[in-house]
Each structure stands twice: as structure tokens, then as C-alpha cells.
């Protein structure tokens, strides 16, 4: 189990230090600083073992969070906890920065006491935590005894993530499907690797203790339904086209896993407010929103001609946003001339790349940039490694092809039905690591 937790700034100074077990001494703090933060190598392993002590770290901007243990713990659990902790802190005071951590250190210690007990992770649900750890000073005098006991029963009860007696005038439900698409493509247009990692994020304002049921075009569910129902050829082919194969998925703690295992249906009592319902990953039949066609020509030792064409590959009615293409330049670049039809392109010397930005682009369009790069002859005979061209964008659909089929809300005790709930669904596809070799 986790023996201790430290937060460092970028210089390696300790901002927060909380030790849960005696086997972690003060020297562990320094060991991590010396061996990891001040390490010479640029790439650091997320897990470091120093003197039989394991350090698991994540980095948020300039802040290092490190969990320390002497035991053989489940690394995935530790990282899940660290990410959860980042979420909790972000929901309390926004961005995780040195300033914010210094300003909220009392709160952070309070949180650390609550979400870890003797190194064992406890309830880290933001909603639940916010009921008893607040930033608004001592609220206790306004809280009644009943409210306090309610908190206790909720936190220790079966449904720890939702308290009873929530009431909204307007029952509303927001559902976002957020996906990031990753790609590595050869210069000839061959897909070398591609996958989508997606999240279903919800925000619910529902009264009482509603029971929700979420349905999507999961291949297994649809095939099952198709078999049980009418077996007509046409229906099967359409369903086959629209269903997606999910490689793996994880759920929020509110989802009843037994039901998912047996019926593959996702039913849950939602927490109040923001939460992430599920995460998933797909690798098949991915819609690649953009195609990058690079053309690099070396003209002698002192000149390089680059031409890059991007093609949008989705419905013309949809608009992609925040498009950014990053074309790496050789290390001995001495000057760049860029011509582009659309958007703005600039040579950023500090990053050794040409950055081309386009605000909006509709589907089934094409755009092109050409650049002339002047090179300075160097003594080094080393050849330029030609790093891949990378791309960033945001599209209003799910590149995995996921569709929300239904989201039903049942509340038997209160007098509102599924139809009374206002539901909003949104799809956002973003680029992850979207690279094309040149």
C-alpha cells in the first residue's frame, strides 16, 4: 500500500509531504528529488525503484506528484489513485500549479487524510468529498446534526456517491462523448497504427435516486438483439455497419458491473453533478478525420522543399476546428519561406517546426502548404532524422463511430418519467498523437 505521498515543484522543492507508514523515512523525499527530478536523462520512467523503495510519479505542468511505497503494490492502482487525486484537486481549486498548491495546502492535507487511510485509498468521489470537506471556512455551525449524520450514513452506506433527498425543479442530463484519435501513418498513406480512446462524461441534475440505463451501438449488444429479433439480411447489414467493436472499457463505480457482465447493459444510479461514466478504447473501423500527404524534397545540401496537403474526410456539413499542423524542420535551418492558401503558417525556431493553423475547415475539403527551407552547411555528417508531421484538431463527431442509442431514466418514487428529463448529447473528437511520417 502507499507509504507516503509527496508533491514537488519543478525545482524539486517539497510542497506537500504526507507519510502514511513508518517504513518511509524522510530520506525518501530527497531520494526522489535526486534520482528522478534532477536526473540527467530527459525521459523518466513513471515507476522508479530506489533502494528497495518504489516511487510512482505523475507530472502536471510543473508539479510532480509522487507516491512512495516499500511494498509490492499494484502499480495501476497507484496511478489510478494519483489521477483521481489530480481530479479531486482540480475540482477544488482549478489548475494544479505551484501557486494553487501553496495557497491550498491545508485543504490538500485535509483531502489526503480523507482519501487515503494508512495507505489504502478511500472514497475519492469529488461530490461526496465536497459534502464534508469545504473551502468555505467552518460551515459546521450552519450544518444541522441531521445533515451531519446524513453525511456519515451516505459516505459509509451502499451508495456512497449520492445522497438522498436531492431535488431539482428541472431534471436535466448532459452527456458528452469525448474521444481522442491516435494515428501513425507512413508517407505512402498506409496506416501503421491507429486507435481511439474515448470517455463518456456526464453531468446529471436529477431528483431523488433515479436508475439510469445507457445504451450505445456496441457490436455485441446489437448482434445479440439481431439474433433474438427478426433475422432479415438488410437489417443485419445496416446494424453491422453502425455497430462498433469496443476493445476494452472501464466504468465509474456507480455502474452495476454484474448486470454488465450478464446482460451487457449499463445501468447505474448516477452521482450528482459531473462524473465520468466510462472509458473505452477501439482499434477497428476508425474514421480518420484528416489525411496528411507530405512531400519533402532535398535540393542540394542547403535547401529543402516541403509540400503538405491535408484532406478532411467527413461529412461536408460538419466543421472541424482548431486545426494545427506541425512540420518539423532540420536542426540547421537558417531560413524558411512559407506559402499557404488557408490559415496562417509560421516558422517557430524555438520548437524547430513550422506551425500551420487553420481555424475552421469543412468536410471533404483539401488544403495545401508549401515551404522552402534554407539550410546552413554543418560539420556534422549526421543525417536529419525526419521526425513525423503531427496534427491537432477537434471534430464534432466520434471517430470511433460510437452512437448513443438511448439513455433512460427511471425514478419510481418521484413523479417524473423518462420523458420529462431534458437530455443533451454531444460528440467531440480530438486528436491524440496524430502523426504522419515524411
Amino acid at each position, binding site marked *: 500500500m502507499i507509504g507516503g505521498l509527496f508533491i514537488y515543484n519543478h525545482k524539486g522543492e517539497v510542497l506537500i509531504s504526507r507519510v502514511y507508514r513508518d517504513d518511509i523515512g524522510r530520506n525518501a523525499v530527497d531520494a526522489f528529488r535526486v534520482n528522478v527530478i534532477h536526473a540527467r536523462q530527459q525521459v523518466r520512467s513513471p515507476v522508479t525503484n530506489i533502494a528497495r523503495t518504489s516511487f510512482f510519479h505523475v507530472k502536471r505542468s510543473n508539479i510532480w506528484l509522487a507516491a512512495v511505497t516499500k511494498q509490492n503494490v499494484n502499480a495501476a492502482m497507484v496511478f489510478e489513485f494519483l489521477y483521481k487525486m489530480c481530479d479531486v484537486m482540480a475540482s477544488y481549486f482549478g489548475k494544479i500549479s505551484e501557486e494553487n498548491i501553496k495557497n491550498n495546502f491545508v485543504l490538500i492535507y485535509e483531502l489526503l487524510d480523507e482519501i487515503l487511510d494508512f495507505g489504502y485509498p478511500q472514497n475519492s468521489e469529488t461530490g461526496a468529498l465536497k459534502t464534508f470537506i469545504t473551502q468555505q471556512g467552518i460551515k459546521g455551525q450552519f450544518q444541522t446534526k441531521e445533515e451531519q449524520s446524513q453525511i456519515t450514513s451516505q459516505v459509509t452506506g451502499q451508495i456512497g456517491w449520492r445522497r438522498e433527498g436531492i431535488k431539482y425543479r428541472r431534471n436535466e442530463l448532459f452527456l458528452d462523448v469525448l474521444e481522442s484519435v491516435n494515428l501513425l501513418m507512413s508517407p505512402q498513406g498506409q496506416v501503421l497504427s491507429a486507435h481511439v480512446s474515448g470517455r463518456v462524461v456526464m453531468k446529471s441534475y436529477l431528483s431523488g435516486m433515479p436508475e439510469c440505463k445507457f445504451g450505445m451501438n456496441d457490436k455485441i449488444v446489437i448482434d445479440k438483439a439481431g439474433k433474438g429479433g427478426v433475422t432479415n439480411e438488410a437489417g443485419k447489414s445496416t446494424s453491422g455497419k453502425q455497430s462498433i467493436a469496443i476493445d476494452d472499457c472501464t466504468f465509474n463505480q456507480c455502474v452495476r458491473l454484474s448486470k454488465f457482465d450478464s446482460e451487457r447493459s449499463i445501468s447505474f444510479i448516477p452521482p450528482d453533478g459531473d462524473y465520468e461514466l466510462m472509458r473505452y478504447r477501439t482499434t477497428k473501423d476508425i474514421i480518420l478525420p484528416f489525411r496528411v500527404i507530405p512531400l519533402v524534397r532535398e535540393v542540394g545540401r542547403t535547401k529543402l522543399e516541403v509540400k503538405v496537403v491535408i484532406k478532411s474526410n467527413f461529412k461536408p456539413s460538419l466543421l472541424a476546428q482548431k486545426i494545427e499542423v506541425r512540420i518539423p524542420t532540420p536542426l540547421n535551418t*537558417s531560413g524558411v519561406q512559407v506559402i499557404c492558401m488557408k490559415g496562417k503558417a509560421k516558422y517557430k525556431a524555438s520548437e524547430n517546426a513550422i506551425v500551420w493553423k487553420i481555424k475552421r475547415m469543412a468536410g471533404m475539403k483539401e488544403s495545401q502548404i508549401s515551404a522552402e527551407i534554407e539550410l546552413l552547411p554543418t*560539420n556534422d555528417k549526421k543525417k536529419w532524422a525526419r521526425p513525423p508531421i503531427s496534427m491537432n484538431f477537434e471534430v464534432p463527431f466520434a471517430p470511433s463511430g460510437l452512437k448513443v442509442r438511448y439513455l433512460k431514466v427511471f425514478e419510481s418514487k418521484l413523479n417524473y418519467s423518462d420523458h420529462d428529463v431534458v437530455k443533451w448529447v454531444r460528440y467531440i473528437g480530438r486528436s491524440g498523437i496524430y502523426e504522419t511520417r515524411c
Partner: protein
Amino acid sequence: MPAVSKGDGMRGLAVFISDIRNCKSKEAEIKRINKELANIRSKFKGDKALDGYSKKKYVCKLLFIFLLGHDIDFGHMEAVNLLSSNKYTEKQIGYLFISVLVNSNSELIRLINNAIKNDLSSRNPTFMCLALHCIANVGSREMAEAFAGEIPRILVAGDTMDSVKQSAALCLLRLYKASPDLVLMGEWTSRVVHLLNDQHMGVVTAAISLITCLSSKNPDEFKTCVSLAVSRLSRIVSSASTDLQDYTYYFVPAPWLSCKLLRLLQCYPPPEDGAVKGRLVECLETILNKAQEPPKSKKVQHSNAKNAILFEAISLIIHYDSEPNLLVRACNQLGQFLQHRETNLRYLALESMCTLASSEFSHEAVKTHIETVINALKTERDVSVRQRAADLLYAMCDRSNAKQIVAEMLSYLETADYSIREEMVLKVAILAEKYAVDYSWYVDTILNLIRIAGDYVSEEVWYRVIQIVINRDDVQGYAAKTVFEALQAPACHENMVKVGGYILGEFGNLIAGDPRSSPLVQFNLLHSKFHLCSVPTRALLLSAYIKFINLFPETKATIQEVLRSDSQIRNSDVELQQRAVEYLKLSSIASTDVLATVLEEMPPFPERESSILAKLKKKKGPGAVSVELEDGKERGELNGGGDRGVPDLTNALSTPSPSADLLGLRSAAPVSGAAPSAGSLLVDVFSEAGPAAASAGVNDDGFLRFVCKNNGVLFENQLLQIGIKSEYRQNLGRMYLFYGNKTSVQFVSFSTTLNVQTKTVEPLVEGGAQVQQVINIECLTDFVDAPLLNIKFRYGGALQNISLKLPVTINKFFQPTEMAAADFFQRWKQLSQPQQEAQKIFKASHGMDTEVLKAKLLGLGTALLENVDPNPENYVCAGVIQTKAQQVGCLLRLEPNAQAQMYRLTLRSSKDTVSQRVCDLLAEQF
């Protein structure tokens, strides 16, 4: 480029550096550097020619980025361009960049060399200096190749500025150190020496570094520098502190130059020229006098400079080692420093005194400071100074003060630092032995040593005590008494138990008369320590017990009881168990006479160099050994091999174990001719036969092998190998015997006796060596018995006796005779008398290979006759045996029977004894 006010302040550079310093993270720094690099690249690439200022600025930035740890792969060309600028600052930056970043890029090197050449040939002294500094900083082979000829010329040219001369001298020194083969001594060498006469002190200082280095390689070429150096030194020393102006450092005139001069003089023996020598002595006296003067300044720099010269002067005095007066004065001066407040001075004084102590002139003077040194050993706070004090005490020790020094060192040992304890112990042991007049004092000292610092007493130390006690009858009784008393302490060190066990085992009888130390008391005392000791010590104690049985028969029952106990006889340690069993058996079976012989008192050890001394030398490493120790070392190595033969404590009885291997020998010494393996020794214990008998058998099989061949190995055991080479013609023969010593120990009083006349062999056979003996043989008449060779030698202590039959047989004198079939059968028939024929039917003991048989028959010396016998399977031979008295014709027929694996051998000769003998010899061969 706007015309910014030019000068050394490059604003762009300052801004860039402050940007880098303000970067929050590594990433930000890399971004900033990338941006700057791109900027510089575009500037260098740009069509507009850059002016010198901006070129300098960008090269500076590149240099800064390089020093931050990033790779720079451009800008070299711009830096080289800067070299040709006329501005000092631009040139300087260019040279700086090149000395830091130059790599062996051929085209650039050529450009750089060209620029350097231009600067060297320019008359501008600053440019020349810059170029010289660059050469020295790079110092590569290419540079040396290009400029090794040029620089000496600049150095000795009359019109060169002083500052350039300084740089040139140091540059040449650097090139010489880097690639000495390229810097050739030429006609300039003599002129370099004359730089010592230069007006400018800086030039002299620079030149003297060069000369010191060069003269250490070829002292003869620079011999003339001695007198120049002496005159220069005397001028400096005699000058007042105000004379040298710039070169006076805190009222000391030219301290660095003086030190270097003194150091240069240390490369040479004392000057032969009386005038020069007198002047030098005067200088040294002046330096010593100056040390006595009150300081002109309280500043530490003043005293440092003064003392630096003084210590160099003392080093020189010690190096010359010929001026008793100066040596004594130096010693007195150092004596003053011994009590100085400065730790460094005390350290240096002790160190110099150590070398002084070994000089015969100053030894007495050093001795007067003994109290101070002892005091230093006790009270000094710094361990390194204490170490030096201990070294000095060791160095100044002689017969007169040995007792005092040893006593002081012993008393200090109780509180000494752990790091120097072992060395101290060795030193005490050596001094005690070296200056012992009275051996009881020696024994007391060493036992005290073991008591005080038992853990640091190495094996060698207690081995040595025992060697000395055994070799000197007069201390044996005293030693026994003392160890007996020492062992009575409730807790005593294991090394003490070892010494006690050994000495009481040997000489316990000397104190047995006293009822307080009766045999049983002695035994009980030893046995009370037994269980606390490690296995090797226990093994030694067991041997002591068996010796007790011999010394005091009344203890036999008690000791046998102890040996019989399960903890001994069933001990899990093989060594202990074996000893217990063997000793028990020995004590119960052997008669008192046998016991007395076997367990006799150890014979004296051969005198040889102390093993402790060798150990001390090993500890100190090669550098620190004084001359006296050095020659001892050689002796030690020569005798090293000889150490082996000394018998073990238990004589031939016990297995050679490392514990009882008293003398620290490298391997177990073979005790006698018997094999050193444990198994065979076990047998030896029970057999009464002497070890020599085992190896002394006569070599029958070796002998028989030589019937048909003349060369080979006649005899071989663990010690000795005898090879043989022989040749025969008619009735004469010559035999070479080679005696090879297979051990590393010499054989003493080696002799061979033969019942035939021989030349004597060398009485000594060195370890690993071979000696040769030639025997001339003449066959007078036919014979049956082979001559016997008796070999006697001493190996270690044991007398070895080997008897061998020399492989001289009658058939050696065969002369082959070729004859036709008819001829053969005619002669065969002539020799038909029954006594002329000898026949044998025997079974084949080897295979019946035709070729082998033929070879053997030829080896016999006869002629093999083909196509004589009607049966081709049969072999027929003929020959004549030549003796001085007569010639004996001899015919031979060998009929093999392949089915039965049998032979029938028939021999006919004109003499019956010959037939019989040859037949007998030959029958053994097939």
C-alpha cells in the same frame, strides 16, 4: 546592424545569458536556445556580410551554448574568420572558440594553422601570445607537427618580446609533454639554457619550467644549467626585498622562481666545480639564515612563500646528502617547525625529517627531537600528522633509543587510529627484533603487542616470535614462563593462544618443575582456551597436546580422554577430526621411543629475512620504501623459495594444513618424499616404515623399457626426473643422464655413485634446474647384471636415496650383420650345439603388430633379414655383439602365432651366456 557603441560589452550576449538564467524549466531553456540557434543560423546564412562585432557576438553566444552542454555543429568557419581580424577582442574570441571547440577536422585545422602561422610571424606581441596560447590549449599532435619547429625559434630569437618568450616557453613545454617525439632537441637547447640569464624574471620563470622538464629526460644536454641556476639563485637570495619590485611577493623576492631553481638543482648531483658549490652552499646557508629572521609581515602569504623556499632548500640539502653542517642546520630548522602552530608545517617538517633520519650525518641530530616527536604522536589532532610522526619514530630508531621508542609506540598503540594500527604493529615488531639485545625484552614486547592490539597482529608477527624463540635456546625458558603467565589472563587474544600453544608444546618442560606450572596445570590452562578459538588455532592446540604426551607422560591419560571425546574425534571439521584420530592412535600405539622421535623438539629455522619486513613493504607500496628496505626485499625474494622446505610443527605426522603452516608459506611443504595428499599420509601414520624407503625401489620396469630404445625418461617421482640419452658404437657407449629437479627448492649434497667410473655431478641441483652427467661405457666382456646407479641428495631436511639400474644391456653392443638366406641357414646350422641355443615360448603381452615388432627388433640392434625364412610371418635377425674381449655372433628367430597369441623365440650364438641373456631380455619385450 545599427552601430551600437562598440566595445567589450556585447549587449545581445548579456541579454541572452540573462534570458537563459531566468528560464523556469529545462524545457524553457531548450526553447530559448533553439530560438537563438535559429537566429544565429539565419544571420550566418544571410547574404549580408556580418561585421566583426556581430560575428564576435554570435560566436560568443555559440560558445556559451556549447558550455551549457549543447552540441554546436556550425560557426567554426566564422570563428576562423575572426582569427584574421585585426582587433584584439575579435581575435581573442576566435582563438577562445577554437581552443574550446576544435575537433580534428582536416580542412579547418589547415585554416587554423594558417591563421596561427600568420600571427606568429606578425610582429605584434599580443597576437603572437594569443596564437601561442591557442597552440598550448589545443596541444594536439597536429599542432605539435605544425609548430614544434617554429616555437623554439621564437623562444631563442634575440628580438622577441619578453612576454612572447614566456608564452613560447610554456607552449613548448606543453607540446613536449603531449608529444615528446615531435619536439626535437636541436641547436636551440644550449640557447634555452641561457635564458636563465635573461634580464626578465618572468622569462626565467617560464624557461625554468621547460628546462626542468627537458633535463629530467636528458640530463646531460642541460648540464650547463647548474652553474647558471646557482648564480641566478644566489642573485635572488642575496637581493634585498625591494630589488626585484614586481617579483617580490610579500617581501619575499621571487619565491616561485627560487623554488623552481632549487627543484631544478635536485635533478643533478652536487656541482663538482668548487666555486659553484661554494656559492650554492652560501645560498643555502642564506636561506636557512633567513628562516631565523623575524618575519617582515604577519600575513600568511609571507610565511608561506618563505617556507616554500626553505623546504625546497632542505629537500636539496637532503638530495645532496654531503654537507653535514647544512644537514644538521636543516634538521634544527625542522625541529623548530615541529612545534609550529601550523599543522601543514608540522606535517612537512615530520616528512622531511623522515628522509633526514636516513642520512648518516643528520641521524644524530634528528634523534635529539625524539621527545617532540613522541609528543606529536600523542597529542596531534590530525591523523595524517600522527602517521608521519610514527614514520619518523620508526626512521630515527636505533640501538640506543629502541627501548624507549618501542615502549612509546606500544603505549600509543592502545589509542592509535584504526587505520594505522596494523602498520604500527608491524613497525613495533620489526624494531623490537632489529634492535633486540636482550631476547627476553623482545619476547615481552611482542607478547605485549599481541595483548594490546591482538586483532592487528598479522600471522607474520607471531610466526616470527616463534622462529626466534625456537632458534635461541637462551630465551626458551623465559618465553615459556611469560606465555604461561600471559595465558592466565581471563581474556586473551587468539594470537596469544596460538603463541602459547606452540611454545608450551615445545618448551613446556622447561617450566614444569615449578608446581605452579606443572604439566597438568599447563594443559588445563591451554585447554580452557580451546573452546573459544577458531578451527586453525584448535588444530594447533591439538598438536600441542600430542607434544605434551611426549613431554609429560603423566598427562597422557588426561589428554587421551580429551582426544577421545566426541567433540574431538567426531568433530565436523575434517582437519580437527583427523588430527584427533591420528594423535589418539599415535599416542596409544607408538612406543615412547617412537613418540620421542616423532615429536622431537623442532629443529632451528634457517636464518633468513624477516617476513614482517616484507609485509610492511607490501603495505606501504613501492614509492614509500626506504633504500634500506629495498635491498632487503631482493634478498627476501631470493630466499623465498627456500622457505618451503622447513618442516611443519608436527613433523611428518599431520596433514599439511594452513594453520600449522607456521612460516606463512605459499603452499603446504611436501614433508618428505611421500606424496603430500592427505590420503597417503593417513597410511604413513600407521606404517612404521621411514618415508625414504617408499621412494627407493629399484626401477625394473623403467629398465626394461630401454632394451630396445636408447632415449627417454628413466625415472620420475614428485621430486626428481631422470632422463637418459645414449649412443653406442661397437663396444663403446656414451650415456647422458639428465637430473631434473621438479621442485622449486634446491637439492643439497647431490651425489651419484655408480659401480662404474663416472664423472661427478654438481653437488647442488637448483630448484627447477637440470644437471647433466655423462657416462662413458666400454663393454669388456659379455655381462648379465646392469650397472647400479645410486643417487643421494638432501631435499629440505630429508635425505633422499634412489637406486636405479642403468639401462645398459648386452644387446646395446650389437653390430647388425646383413646376410643372404643360404648364408643364414648355414650359420644357423653351425650353432646347433644345445648350449648355444636358447629358446623361449611365451605369451604376447602387447599386440602383434608387424611394424611394432620390426621396430623393436631393429631397436635391439640386430639386422632384420627379409626373405630368409620360408614362412613370411617369421622374423629372422642377425648381429654381432662387440666386446673388447671377443665378438659374439648371434642369430635370432621369432615365430609369432597369431591364433594363440604366442611367440617362440630362438636364439643361437657362439656363447651360451649371451644366448641366454639376450633371450631373457627380448622375451620381456613382446
